[in-house]
């Protein structure tokens, strides 16, 4: 093959089209699409089509479509040693972004996966009541929480969306609206003095 310089298409010899990005695709009856892609991570695609939200926009709902990014502001204490069922336990962490904070429920291996200061992206999460009426954000069975960075994110600890009393919207019973603020900040994780 003659060298034509570094801008020769990677898949040469099949057709003469240049390489395009997926965003530039348009329907056509010609077979000249040269592009590069790899499949998305399994388990993430298809679970939620919701757009990314800020924590202050969370409202309890029974749907796992919460996509958001937050910083783990406070982590739970390390799991007790010598307990066989420690892996299966859940625990709470305080997470926050620049608009609000919330309690995040860590389950199983998630307990060791994140530490304070980690920036976490939640995809397909759910914000709902868990056991004794506590309102928590969690990945759930079908959601995914990934560490995408650390430290470089501003956050606030007030309001805490898990410390809000919610009631059904009289106008639209499918929606929940805020009735009262139980506490301006987390009652589980007291603010640093």
């Amino acid at each position, binding site marked *: *093959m003659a*060298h*034509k*310089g*570094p*801008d*020769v298409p*990677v898949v040469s010899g099949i057709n003469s089209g240049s390489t395009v990005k997926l965003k530039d695709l348009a329907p056509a009856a010609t077979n000249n699409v040269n592009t*590069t892609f*790899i*499949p*998305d*991570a399994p388990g*993430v695609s298809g679970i939620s089509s919701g757009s990314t939200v800020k924590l202050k926009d969370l409202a309890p709902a029974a749907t796992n479509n919460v996509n958001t990014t937050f910083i783990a*502001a406070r982590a739970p204490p390390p799991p007790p040693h010598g307990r066989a069922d420690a892996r299966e336990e859940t625990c709470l962490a305080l997470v926050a972004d620049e608009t609000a904070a919330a309690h995040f429920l860590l389950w199983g*291996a*998630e307990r060791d*996966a*994140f530490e*304070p*200061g980690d920036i976490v*992206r939640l995809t397909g999460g759910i914000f709902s009541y868990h056991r004794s009426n506590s309102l928590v954000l969690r990945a759930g069975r079908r959601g995914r*929480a*990934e*560490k*995408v960075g*650390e*430290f*470089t994110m*501003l956050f606030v600890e007030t309001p805490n969306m898990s410390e809000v009393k919610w009631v059904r919207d009289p106008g639209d019973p499918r929606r929940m609206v805020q009735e009262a603020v139980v506490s301006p900040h987390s009652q589980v994780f007291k603010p*640093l003095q």
Partner: protein
Amino acid sequence: MPPPPPPPRLLAGGDHHPSPTSASSPEHPFLSAHLLLPSPSPSDLPSLHLPLALAFSFLADPSPLPRRLLVVLHAAGGRYPAFYHAFASALLSLPFPLLLPHPRNRLLLAASELARAAAPGFAPLLVSLLRRLPFPGDARLLDIFHEHASFLADEEPQLLASAVFAFLRLLAKNRLDPAPQCLECSDCGECKNAKNLAGCRENLVSFCASVLRDHTQVCELIGRDLVRCLHELVLVQEFHELWKDSMLGRAAEICRIGMPGWCTAMAVSPEMETQLLFMMNNVKWGNQKRYQLWFARKHLMVPGGEERIPDIVRFICCGYHPTNKVMQSGVIARWAVIGWLLTSCNKSYVQANAKVALFYDWLFFDEGKGNVMNIEPAMLLMNYDVRRKEAIAECVRNAFAEDLERGLEDCMASRVEDRFMDVIYQDISTVETRKTPMGNSSW
């Protein structure tokens, strides 16, 4: 037919890190290129994907490194002038702390190969590795500099001076801690034979001493922080002799040179720099505590971490000068970050060295040439915290008293003493007692 094995990984990460197939993973572009060019060969030279695909194979292929990869590297570098740069940039784009042991050792091998060929782009790669010291397998870095010291002295003096500064700081008390051997890659000969600098301290000392002796002018580029480093190491026989024989007469002259920008970068790791700059640019007064806790847990509460505080102080004083806009935006000030760092020193020698680091530019301040922003944190810290003033004064005085005994040149000693009197023992009553923007609880 069984499915082909998955491609090897470059970065550590379990279920809760982005998968390499996800666009947000730093591994993603490497893996994409690897899937297109799984086995780079000279026929792939024109491909735009070659730098990333070659970098992937270089880092991930099992031991021993296939010779054809070196052939492709130099063939591409010879044909396309920008190739070496693209290859080095690809290696630099990977988050070093997350690299698995095998790719990390291969990265050092790649740096060594680029340095051997004096390929464009090798200097930033070596600087980046120096800033990450200490890490497992770091002795190869010393080998690279040892092998090419004379060449670097002529062609890349700043790089050689950076290495001397980084190694001297590493020799400071308790900085070098035996790094754990990597178990993840224990069956690979390359990784098993990788040595750590903690195990070759003598080689490190002899390298620094020989460069200081043979390439004194290069080392003087470091400026007054060279004297600061050597003061901390004066009890090491080799440096003591060097100090008496050749450095003593030049110390006053060297101390007139401030810390250059490339040297401030060497004082902290890239992760520390990002986090400190985020704190001082974005985090408002009153919100800093959590960030300080995270920073301390990550960088200070680890073996050799507390000993880095004096260098962090130097970075804040000389490496970051906020604009007026930032200073008026209500973010945490440099002096307050340094005040917090001083309170984080549990070891008395670290605290003494940190205070010396804070006042170093003040002591050698030249009103004609010196940058007042280098000494601003020290001035403000004294100003805002009068209660501490005497304690700080005493500590700095004691630290310098030792230096004076160690044999600073007379004229320099008197200069230090005069400046010390000016700076530290000015009438406390003339210092206005101000409150911090958030009241008295400053950090």
